[in-house]
């Protein structure tokens, strides 16, 4: 399953809910304001419940426009551009946008 989240962890419970619901092989894609949630904090708050083999991706153009660079983000994070976003959609079914 591909979870698409567009709100930060402080705006909505969508991310924390999806982290709890995602199992091995699932992908969580963070877009728009959700990318604020990948700035590393310790302990990793919302990602503490992340299971093994669940991928967390961020839409890189949304990180860039918010002035967030990779050095400030969690190590486990993967980055995609819009073509990578399309590839995630292609390779995962179902797709669930969580608001």
């Amino acid at each position, binding site marked *: 399953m591909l979870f*698409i989240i567009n709100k930060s962890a402080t705006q909505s419970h969508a991310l924390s809910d999806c982290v709890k619901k995602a199992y091995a092989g699932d992908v969580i894609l963070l877009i*728009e304001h959700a990318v604020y949630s990948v700035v590393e904090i310790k302990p990793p708050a919302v990602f503490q419940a992340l299971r093994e083999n669940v991928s967390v991706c961020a839409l890189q153009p*949304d990180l860039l426009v918010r002035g967030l660079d990779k050095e400030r983000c969690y190590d486990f994070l993967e980055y995609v551009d*819009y*073509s990578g*976003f399309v590839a995630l*959609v292609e390779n995962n079914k179902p*797709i669930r946008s969580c*608001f």
Partner: protein
Amino acid sequence: MKISVQINASPYQHQAADTAWGFIQAAIAAGHEVYRVFFYHDGVYNAARDSRPPSDERDIVKRWSTLRVEHNVDLVVCVSSAQRRGLLETSVAKKVAGYEHALADGFRIAGLGLLMEAVIDSDRHITFGE
């Protein structure tokens, strides 16, 4: 792959229309078919004919109309959402408001049946917005 998109948020206030646009452009570039974009709730403002952003800004409404012309993407506006917000189609607009048409070129108005059809007929359906 056949992809349909749903947009639930208004342009200029929410990033959804821009994210959907970036996604659709990348999908088309990758050889996928974007079958339908369904505008729902405040997303219907993406079809507002009278939208006039400043000339140095992106024109979101015009951008959608271009998508219809260049890639034959079906742009469908939810009739109930549109009427609630005063975006009336020709027959209703003439009768109750005395003007021609509230929707920009390339958009058509329809019910939720076409949303369901898009979900059923597409390989993937993605929702942007709220």
